[in-house]
């Protein structure tokens, strides 16, 4: 694709919805209310693992102001985000699997009355022994100790094993073999907006649910399944979401219960989760233990890698099947790896289920790999940047596990971040207590496969042209703050030569907008952008024909620019966009068109090859400079440099914003955030004061460098920006700590107590369980399918 002069793309424009958010006018889910609305609350099991013998709701129902109480018996149909692992219930039927698992739901005249009613619900539990760690889960192999009954091996949700290329040969060739263990503690999204859902039933047996969700289409499917209602009678609307980061990507109990309670009470029902509930509802970063063994030549060339991951999944599957694959999928995308073995297992524990958080399953292995590479470079006496630069994955190549890398800006990212941070002058040269660390990473611009197997588009866009020249765009995508509504306006404005403010955008409404799978896996810009361009293309053909006839100019001499359709050779010969639409509508009838997008296939054709492919990989590098106090163990981040290959910066302001936000979130994970539980299954810090996250005072200066590679698969060459830049920051912090004070902390968060223990020689290496993995699926790149590639 050749570079064009864009009028909108690449410009630092405000988001189309920015001012509404700055005046308080933007309505979020909890800002909506309806006549006769009542309020719902969930009764949650206080025990981590308990069989439900009996539930008594009579006293709760007798309370003044209570409309209805429902239990698991009212919504017994199991559901779950992935069709292969539907193991959740809206309200636990036989068993509660974590402290906080919902057991009953109340609708009442006010939130206060609903809360009072919860205290009157009586449940007779048989308390079961809780399983609270990966090791306990793997040890509890007896059938009687199962958390779920459906999975093959007790308390192992999924175990996978792959071998790509000649792994034994790679190790045999090695001059050095490095073996390390790592632990990435779980943490949570902590969006500022607490989840909220409102359901209205009727008129005409139709159900409408407004929810602060990133995935209205999947909520739509889950509602239909659990309520036993055709999708055509259900409408799901996602108002602007007050922060998601992956935490609002599952269908949730409060959404299903709002719907059911609206149906049984005949009233609108609103559920708003408390902050404490948000900590339990979670679906955040999996705690992962990792073991990694890597074969290298003396010059640092990687010959083979064997990687094992153990994911602490919590009480339900959620996205876990994908998460376990993701901990092994993208190792091969950054540096050339000729042989690779991956074994991963996700276990059930009696804790809130984990799911996707920014980077889904890939920050943990990236943490491990990038620290190990730092160790390898140190041992071999090679600069860690040079070690990587000599073996980068080349553009237009296929990795050993069958992933096609189209463009890569990793080399430029490394060189630019090093120059900006003055790496060569600082690395191993700063005074004691001060250090720099480097890491690199790759991420997907959208998952190659949908959550449920189908051959339909991943994203659809519909455009309607009004005879006044108005342009309205309809798309199922969900703006969670990343600017996806604006992306649609920018693309359509670019195509029609209009201003983004001329475009009206309607999104995330299953009655009005074509399906887009949702705001996850960094898929939205690439997929909705391509769909929008395709829809515009169909309309442009019609418009150009009508304008050509009206102006008596051949179509190929016409262009859309500055609100007009005009002659390229005589720009004064022009129709206004509105006149052009009028002419076209007179000629063709009412004007509208659709466009859609489905990602290309990748060469990998083995079972499990569905996780990892994407239209285009983004690449990021980071250098962190910090000070570490030997007396207190405190870390002060001085500055972070981040370079990100975003393909084309659709809007550099938004790409920078996504990058800075990713760096910030990474810093929280690296230094302080952890989602940990007591022996009784209760969260240790279910409040924003105790679950520490960085404020303005802990967030350092961030210098963002955008690298553009113009990917053929991306709209105008764009790739993702929302998740990838999180990945390199966490290991770069750990590597900088080593540069500063000479101790390795192979886990996050890197807290002062761990640093002090390490300085005193008392820091314990991470132990990783032994486990009998299944026999590996073996695959070589030559066995893959032929893939057509865009030039």
């Amino acid at each position, binding site marked *: 694709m050749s570079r064009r002069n864009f009028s909108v793309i690449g410009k*630092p424009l*405000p*988001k189309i919805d*920015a*001012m509404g*958010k*700055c*005046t*308080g*006018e*933007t*309505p*979020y889910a909890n*800002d909506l209310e309806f006549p006769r609305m009542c309020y719902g609350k969930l009764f949650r099991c206080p025990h981590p693992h308990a069989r439900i013998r009996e539930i008594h709701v*009579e006293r709760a*129902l007798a309370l*003044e*102001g209570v*409309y*209805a*109480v*429902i*239990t698991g018996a*009212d919504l017994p149909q199991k559901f779950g985000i992935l069709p292969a692992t539907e193991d959740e219930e809206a309200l636990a039927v036989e068993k509660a699997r974590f402290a906080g698992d919902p057991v009953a739901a109340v609708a009442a*005249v006010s939130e206060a*009355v609903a809360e009072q009613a919860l205290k009157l619900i009586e449940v007779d539990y048989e308390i079961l022994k809780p399983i609270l760690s990966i090791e306990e889960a793997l040890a509890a192999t007896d059938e009687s100790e199962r958390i779920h009954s459906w999975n093959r091996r007790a308390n192992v949700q999924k175990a996978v094993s792959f071998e790509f290329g000649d792994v034994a040969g790679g190790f045999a060739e090695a001059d050095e073999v490095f073996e390390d263990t790592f632990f990435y503690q779980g943490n949570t999204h902590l*969006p*500022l*907006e*607490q989840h909220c859902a409102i359901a209205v039933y009727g008129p005409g047996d139709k159900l409408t649910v407004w929810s602060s969700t990133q995935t209205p289409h999947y909520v739509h499917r889950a509602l239909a399944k659990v309520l036993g209602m055709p999708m055509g009678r259900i409408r799901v609307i996602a108002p*602007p*979401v*007050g*922060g*998601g*980061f992956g935490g609002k990507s599952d269908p949730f109990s409060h959404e299903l219960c709002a719907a059911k309670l609206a149906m*049984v*009470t005949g009233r609108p029902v609103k559920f708003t989760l408390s*902050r404490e509930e948000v900590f339990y509802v979670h679906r955040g970063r999996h705690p992962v233990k990792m073991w990694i063994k890597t074969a290298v030549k003396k010059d640092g060339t990687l010959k083979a890698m064997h990687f094992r991951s153990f994911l602490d999944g919590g009480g339900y599957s959620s996205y876990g099947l994908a998460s376990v694959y993701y901990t092994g999928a993208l190792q091969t995308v950054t540096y050339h790896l000729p042989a690779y073995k991956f074994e991963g297992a996700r276990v059930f524990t009696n804790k809130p289920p984990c799911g996707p958080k920014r980077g889904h399953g890939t920050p943990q292995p990236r943490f491990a790999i990038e620290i190990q590479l730092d160790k390898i470079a140190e041992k071999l006496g090679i600069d860690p940047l040079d070690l990587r630069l000599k073996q980068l994955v080349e553009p237009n190549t296929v990795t050993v596990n069958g992933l096609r890398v189209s463009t890569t800006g990793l080399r430029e990212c490394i060189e630019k971040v090093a120059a900006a941070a003055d790496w060569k002058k600082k690395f191993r040269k700063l005074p004691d207590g001060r250090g720099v660390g480097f890491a690199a990473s790759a991420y997907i611009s959208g998952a190659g496969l949908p959550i449920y197997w189908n051959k339909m588009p991943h994203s659809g866009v519909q455009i309607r042209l009004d005879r006044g020249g108005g342009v309205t765009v309809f798309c199922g995508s969900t703006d*969670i*703050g*990343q*600017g996806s509504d604006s992306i649609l306006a920018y693309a359509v404005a670019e195509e029609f030569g209009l201003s983004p403010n001329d475009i009206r955008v309607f999104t995330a409404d299953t009655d009005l907008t074509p399906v887009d799978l949702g705001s996850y896996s960094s898929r939205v810009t690439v997929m909705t952008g391509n769909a929008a361009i395709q829809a515009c293309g169909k309309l442009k053909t019609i418009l150009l024909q009508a304008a050509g006839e009206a102006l008596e100019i051949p179509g190929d001499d016409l262009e859309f620019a500055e609100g007009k359709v005009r002659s390229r050779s005589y720009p004064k010969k022009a129709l206004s966009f509105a006149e052009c639409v009028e002419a076209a509508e007179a000629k063709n009838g009412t004007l509208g068109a659709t466009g859609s997008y489905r990602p290309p296939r990748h060469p990998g054709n083995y079972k499990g090859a569905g996780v990892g492919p994407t239209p285009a990989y983004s690449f990021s590098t980071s250098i962190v400079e910090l000070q570490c106090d030997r007396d207190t163990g405190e870390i002060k981040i001085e500055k972070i440099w981040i370079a990100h290959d975003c393909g084309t910066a659709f809007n550099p*302001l*938004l790409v*920078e*914003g996504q990058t*800075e*936000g*990713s760096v*910030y979130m990474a810093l929280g994970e690296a230094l302080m955030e952890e989602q940990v539980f007591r022996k009784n299954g209760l969260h240790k810090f279910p*409040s*924003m*004061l105790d679950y520490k*996250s960085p*404020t*303005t*005072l802990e*967030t350092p200066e*961030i210098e963002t460098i955008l690298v553009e590679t113009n990917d053929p698969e991306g709209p105008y060459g764009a790739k993702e920006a929302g998740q990838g830049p999180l990945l390199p920051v966490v290991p770069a912090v750990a590597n900088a700590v080593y540069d500063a004070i000479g101790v390795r902390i192979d886990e996050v968060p890197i807290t002062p107590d761990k640093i002090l223990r390490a300085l005193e020689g008392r820091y314990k290496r991470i132990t990783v369980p032994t486990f009998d993995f299944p026999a590996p699926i073996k695959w070589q790149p030559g066995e893959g399918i032929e893939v057509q590639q865009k030039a």
Partner: protein
Amino acid sequence: MAVKRKIKNNNGSAANRKRLLRLHVNGETKEVAAEDNKTLLEILREDLKLTGTKHGCEVGECGTCTVLIDGEPALSCLVLGVEYEGAEIVTVEGLKRGGAPHPLQKAFSDLGAAQCGYCTPGILVTAKALLDKKPHPDREEIKQALAGNICRCTGYTKIIEAVELAADGEAKR
């Protein structure tokens, strides 16, 4: 499933009796009947329908519900409406000047300082209180002033830049 068709109103008991309050919000005097235990946040959102003020924790930990009371930032989830009759209360809806956006609103919009936008109202009024007292704060003063407002989207970078831009813009007025 258990459903009741007829219910009594729960607002009858003495503890729940409402009192008529006169509140000065965004330059207007509003009368509202509210229970004594209702927080200012609840009165603003539920009774006055000023839903621009958001809530993130309702226990004073996130700064999302910040409003100005007599020019000072206050967490509206931690104070009762009944305490502030006679005070001047300003919410995000009161920032516009004669229908035009406040320079802070313009700067936040132009620089992409509002991503999901949920923490934005609280941050805007906190920043306004800062600029009203100190028209040219340095970066450290901006960070200190906003340290109680958590934002999970932006990494604060564009927020701080937007406050600086608004301060510069005000200087040129």
